[in-house]
C-alpha cells in the first residue's frame, strides 16, 4: 500500500503553509495582508458578518452542552468552520438556494432559517425541516455527497426556465469528494453549465480519516479542472477572503463573462476544531498539537481584530452583541423544547394523502395507546 498518505501523519497545516494559490485577505491576526484587496462590503454588512459568526460560535458551544445535558441528541459541531459558513451565506442573494449538510447550522441561519428549527431535528422533530416558503434552504443532507447532483439539478432547472438570476450554493465535506455522487454532480454541472457554486468545506478530516486518505490529488480545488470548471482555494478561516471568493463565484454563476462557464468549485480550507460529532472522540486518532496551529488562525478572532482596526467595533458594542446573542440562543432552545408532536405524525406526509393501509396502522397504534398507557411505549427495548 502506498504509505505516502499514512493515516494521521500531518505536516504543516495547509492554510499555514506558504501557499500562492490560497486566497487570503487577512493575516493570522486579522490585519489586512499587504497585497490583498478587501471585498466591497459596507460597515453594516461587516457587522452582520461579525454578529452572525459570533452567534454561531456561541450556538455551537451551547449545543454541545445541551447535548451533554440530554436536551439534544447527537450534534455535529462547527467551531472553526463558522466563519466560512456565514461568509458564504451572506454572499448569497435572497433568491439563491442553499444545500447544507448536517454541519452547516450557521450557513442555514445566515440564509434565513431560525434557530428554533435548527434545534428541532436535534430533539427528534422533523418540524425543523419544514422550511418556510420564503427561506431558500433545503433540509440538511446526511447521506454524504447526495446533495451534489441535486444542487446541480436545481440550478439546471432554473437555467432551463430562464431564471439565471438565481444561483445555487451547495456545501460538501472533503470526505464527500470521494463519493460517486460528487463526480456525477460536478460532471453534470460542467456539461450543462449550470449556475451553481460548490463549496467543499475541507476541514481536513472525515471523522477519523485525514484528507490525504481521501485523494492523492494535492488539492481539492484542482479536481474542478477535470470537469472543465473553475476551482478556487480560499483560506476558510478568513471570513473576508471567503466572502470575496463566494461573491465572485455567485456573480459568475449568474452572469458569466465571455468564454466563462458558470459553475465553480471552491475549496474552503478549514480545520474541524472539535469532534466530528458529540459521539466522537478525536483523541483516538489525531494529535492535539495539530489543532493548535489552526487555533492561531481562529476566524472569530480575525474578523474581530479587523473590525477593531477599522474602528467599526469597540468593546461596548462587542459586549452588547454578545448579550443579545446569548439571549437569542437561550430563547431558541426554550422554544424548541416546547415542540410537540403526536405519534400520528409517523403516517403523515409520507404521501400527499394518507393511504388506507397506513391509516389502519395508525388506528391500530392509537387503539393500543388507549388500551395501555403511553408509558408502555417508552420502555427501553434493550
Amino acid at each position: 500500500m502506498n504509505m505516502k498518505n499514512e493515516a494521521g501523519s500531518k505536516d504543516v497545516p495547509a492554510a499555514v503553509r506558504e501557499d500562492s494559490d490560497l486566497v487570503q485577505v487577512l493575516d493570522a491576526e486579522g490585519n489586512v495582508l499587504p497585497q490583498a484587496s478587501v471585498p466591497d462590503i459596507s460597515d453594516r454588512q461587516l457587522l452582520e458578518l461579525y454578529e452572525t459568526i459570533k452567534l454561531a460560535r456561541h450556538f455551537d458551544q451551547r449545543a454541545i452542552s445541551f447535548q451533554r445535558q440530554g436536551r439534544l441528541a447527537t450534534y455535529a459541531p462547527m467551531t472553526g468552520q463558522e466563519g466560512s459558513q456565514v461568509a458564504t451565506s451572506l454572499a448569497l442573494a435572497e433568491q439563491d438556494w442553499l444545500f447544507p449538510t448536517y454541519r452547516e447550522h450557521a450557513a442555514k441561519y445566515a440564509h434565513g432559517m431560525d434557530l428554533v428549527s435548527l434545534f428541532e431535528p436535534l430533539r427528534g422533530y422533523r418540524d425543523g425541516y419544514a422550511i418556510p416558503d420564503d427561506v431558500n434552504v433545503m433540509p440538511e443532507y446526511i447521506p454524504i455527497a447526495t446533495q451534489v447532483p441535486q444542487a446541480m439539478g436545481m440550478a439546471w432547472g432554473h437555467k432551463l426556465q430562464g431564471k439565471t438570476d438565481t444561483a445555487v450554493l451547495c456545501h460538501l465535506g472533503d470526505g464527500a469528494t470521494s463519493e460517486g455522487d460528487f463526480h456525477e454532480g460536478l460532471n453534470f454541472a460542467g456539461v450543462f453549465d449550470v449556475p451553481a457554486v460548490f463549496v467543499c468545506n475541507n476541514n481536513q478530516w472525515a471523522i477519523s480519516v485525514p484528507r490525504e486518505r481521501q485523494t492523492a490529488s494535492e488539492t481539492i480545488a484542482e479536481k474542478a479542472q477535470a470537469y472543465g470548471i473553475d476551482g478556487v482555494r480560499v483560506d476558510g478561516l478568513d471570513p473576508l477572503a471567503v466572502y470575496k471568493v463566494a461573491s465572485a463565484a455567485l456573480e459568475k454563476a449568474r452572469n458569466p463573462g465571455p468564454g466563462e462557464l458558470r459553475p465553480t468549485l471552491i475549496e474552503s480550507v478549514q480545520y474541524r476544531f472539535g469532534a466530528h460529532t458529540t459521539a466522537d472522540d478525536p483523541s483516538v486518532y489525531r494529535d492535539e498539537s495539530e489543532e493548535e496551529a489552526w487555533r492561531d488562525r481562529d476566524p472569530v478572532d480575525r474578523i474581530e481584530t479587523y473590525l477593531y482596526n477599522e474602528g467599526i467595533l469597540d468593546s461596548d458594542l462587542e459586549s452588547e452583541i454578545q448579550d443579545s446573542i446569548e439571549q437569542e440562543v437561550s430563547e431558541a432552545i426554550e422554544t424548541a423544547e416546547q415542540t410537540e408532536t403526536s405519534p400520528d405524525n409517523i403516517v403523515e406526509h409520507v404521501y400527499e394523502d394518507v393511504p388506507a393501509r397506513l391509516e389502519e396502522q395508525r388506528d391500530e397504534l392509537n387503539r393500543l395507546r388507549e388500551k395501555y398507557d403511553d408509558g408502555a411505549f417508552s420502555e427501553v427495548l434493550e
Partner: protein
Amino acid sequence: MSSTASTQTGQNAQRLTLVEAIQDGLYTEMSRDDSVVVLGEDVGKNGGVFRATDQLYEEFGEDRVIDTPLAEAGIVGASIGLAQTGMKPVPEMQFMGFMYPAFDQIVSHAARLRSRSQGQYSVPMVIRAPYGGGIRAPEHHSESKEAFFVHEPGLKVVSPSTPYDAKGLLAASIHDPDPVIFLEPKLIYRAFREDVPAKPYEVSLSEAAVRREGSDISVYTWGAMTRPALIAAENLSQSHGIDVEVIDLRTLSPLDVETITNSFKKTGRAAIVHEAPKTVGLGAEIATTIQEEALVHQEAPIKRIAGFDAPMPLHSLEDYYLPQAVRIQDGIRETVDF
C-alpha cells in the same frame, strides 16, 4: 479489549457484549487466516464508530485493517476485486442507511458473479453493517432494510441476537464461500454480556434458534427484536398462562424453513416481529411459507407486528414505530384468543 482478553485467557470463555464478540470474532479469524482483511470508513485508527474493529489496526497493521476513502461503492467494488485474488474481505458499511451507494456492486455483481460465470468465479466476502433503531440516532441511521438483500438471490443475510451467536455466525460467514450481508443490531450492541469462548467456533448459517419453547404460539423474529419478544413471552406466561415459543431466525437468507414449519405444526399459531416496514418485510415471506408448508395446522390468522409503512421517524417518535413488548403481547393475545 477482547483481543487482549482472548490472548490472556487462552481457551477460556470471556464475558462479552455483542459488539465485543464481533471484535473478538474478527480478531480470531484474522489471527487464523492472513487472507482476511477489514476495510471501510473509520475502521482503522478509530477502531470503528461503534468500536467493532477496536485494536485490530494496532494488532494487524494498516495492510489488513484499512481506512478507505469515503465511498461505499468503492469499498464493496474493491472488495469484490480483492476476493478474486484469494483474499477474504470483510468490508464495513458504517450504517445500513449508507449502504445504498454500494447497492449496484452488491446486487449486480457480488450476488451473481457465481451464477454469471457458471461457478468459475465467486465472491467470498462479508459485508458488515449496523442496523435498526432505538438509539436516538440522527436520520438515516436507524433503518432496517434487510428485505432488500433477502430479496436478492445469491446473497446470504445474517443477523445475530446474542454475543455468542455474533462471534459464531461471523466466523461461519467469513468461512462461507458466498457473499454474506452481516447485519448487526446496534440497539443491543452493549445491552448485555454472555460467555463467549475465546477459541474459534462456528454457528451454522442454516439453523434458526429456538430461544424459548412453547406450545400455544410461535413468534418468529431476529436481531434486536428477539429481546422484546422474549420479554413479551415471559410476561404472557405469567399473566395469562400463554406458552409462547420464540424462534430467532439468525440467518434470514436462506431461511431455515424446517425449524419455522416444525414450530408452527406444533402451535398452529404465529406472530412475526420485525422493525422493518410491514409491507414486503420478511414477515410476508415467513407467513406465506408457513401457509405453503403447514396450512392444515393453522388455527388463527398469522399476525405481523412490524414497523410502519412509513419512513423511520426522527427519534422523538421511534418508540412508537418500533415493535415494543406491549405491541408484541397484544398481538400474541389477539392471535391466541382468535
